């Protein structure tokens, strides 16, 4: 397969039940409807259910076939969905021990994803901040965070974004240097330790100016997006913008609020029927919100270069 120029959008959010799979499915549906060849990958390996939302209750192949070497390429695990142009790599029939992916297996999947050739590849990530989740999230700079306007969910967004941040710092500095850095930061400010990014960057700058420039470049290349899901009308409309502001101001990461998705009881109906919400209820506020989000994500709204991280 030729080397791809796919746009990869990892969709994560820390907390479970915020609607990551629903939003992944809906975005995939809209992109496919617009004629883009779109692939959904369920990398919530231990608790996969994207296949149900995508309308493929019993997929014939799944991602563990590739991990267990039953097929040679990740491309062979792709199954079609009832929606034209929309494809799926499911995690439905995964082995029960798949949640604890070994490092080498994870790298294999990441390399496999990089070789796929689609217009858009959407990764549905699991809850939590395990290395697996974070590494899948960092496969591209275009990560999308999904949260609800509730403290529990926002808390986990911050947790996830900090984890991504420090994973990136660690990746750039390599483990040994990171340890030295963490010790130095701890020594200077025992209270904040390494959770204070400004201090961290300052210390890197002093210890290794060259690395510090590189680190800043890497951190600036992130183009995160934030979606507020299950938005009730009594919620503060600006909360998404405020979250982005905090992240930009105190973590120096670029993040853009791309919309609020209204809460709708009928999402439940659509999931129960195993049919796309947008197909069943296209004339609802929630559907309009989803379409607006999709429009905001597509290039033209902001210059998003179509490049992709090569996984080593």
């Amino acid at each position, binding site marked *: 397969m030729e080397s791809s120029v796919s746009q990869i959008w990892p969709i994560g959010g820390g907390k479970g039940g915020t609607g990551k799979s629903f939003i992944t499915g809906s975005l995939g549906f809209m992109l496919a409807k617009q004629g883009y060849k779109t692939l959904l990958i369920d990398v919530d390996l231990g608790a996969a259910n994207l296949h149900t939302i995508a309308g493929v209750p019993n997929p014939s192949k799944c991602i563990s076939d590739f991990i267990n070497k039953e097929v040679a390429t990740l491309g062979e695990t792709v199954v079609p969905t009832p929606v034209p142009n929309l494809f799926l790599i499911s995690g439905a029939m995964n082995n029960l021990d798949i949640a604890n992916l070994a490092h080498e297996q994870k790298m294999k999947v990441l390399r496999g994803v990089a070789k796929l050739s689609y217009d858009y590849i959407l990764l549905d990530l699991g809850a939590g901040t395990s290395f697996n989740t974070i590494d899948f999230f960092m496969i591209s700079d275009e990560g999308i965070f999904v949260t609800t306007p509730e403290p529990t969910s*926002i808390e986990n967004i911050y947790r996830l974004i900090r984890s991504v941040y420090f994973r990136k710092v660690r990746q750039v500095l390599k483990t040994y240097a990171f340890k030295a850095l963490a010790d130095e930061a701890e020594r200077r400010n025992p209270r904040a330790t390494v959770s204070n990014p400004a201090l961290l960057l300052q210390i890197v700058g002093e210890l290794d100016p060259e690395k510090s420039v590189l680190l800043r470049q890497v951190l600036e290349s992130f183009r995160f997006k934030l979606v507020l899901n299950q938005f009730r009308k009594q919620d503060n409309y600006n909360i998404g913008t405020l979250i982005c502001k*905090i992240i930009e101001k105190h973590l120096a990461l670029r993040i853009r609020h791309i919309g609020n998705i209204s809460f709708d009881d009928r999402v439940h109906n659509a999931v129960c029927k195993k049919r796309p919400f947008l197909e069943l209820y296209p004339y609802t506020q929630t559907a309009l919100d989803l379409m607006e989000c999709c429009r905001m994500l597509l290039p033209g709204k902001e210059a998003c270069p179509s490049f992709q991280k090569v996984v080593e």
Partner: protein
Amino acid sequence: MILQTRTMKPFTEQNYYEVLEVSPDELPLGIRLAYKKSFELYQENSIASYSFFSEEERQEILSRIEQAYLTLINPETRKEYDQSLIASGLLEEERTFRDRTKKPIAIYNFQKTLLDSPAAARRSGELKLRIEQNPVIRDLLARDILGGSDLQKLRTVLDVTLEAIAEKTNIRIDILRAIETENLDLFPPLVYLKGFLRSYIRYLGLDERVVLDAYLKKLGLH
């Protein structure tokens, strides 16, 4: 936002304008609003910043915001703070706030009235002198019927332009011309015509009763 990210400094090293995210020439009202916004974002019950900061960090940020607000909202301390920023090269003098708000405008502009009146007095004094001395005017005023052309003659002898009359009396110049050429088609209703004539005659400094009567007699309107 991107620019801000590039030049990001630790919160404690940001100057008060950066803390409140306002430009150095922001109005006091804007500073108040920015303070309110920042306070809401960082206060204890804020959902948006929930769990992002430790309690100490939050307190530190809040007290910094408070300090920024109290300094910038007071014109004296703000000036002092601006001066210190300018001295350390962090701010250019031109970018600081200057009070450009307009003060209330007086209903009567006494100064203007005072300046105007002597000139007007001087002018009418001059006209009076000319009226008394000029034989042509004396001759014309002695008549009991005056036509439009006579009015024009009076005006030209007194060296007053139609434009000047139009300007001062707010009467349209074509109406003034119609009066001098006795162009009845353009005449306004009689009430207005009388008013216009009075203004015209008064502007020339003539006796309005005499001249008005003589003109109306000529038109047969008297």
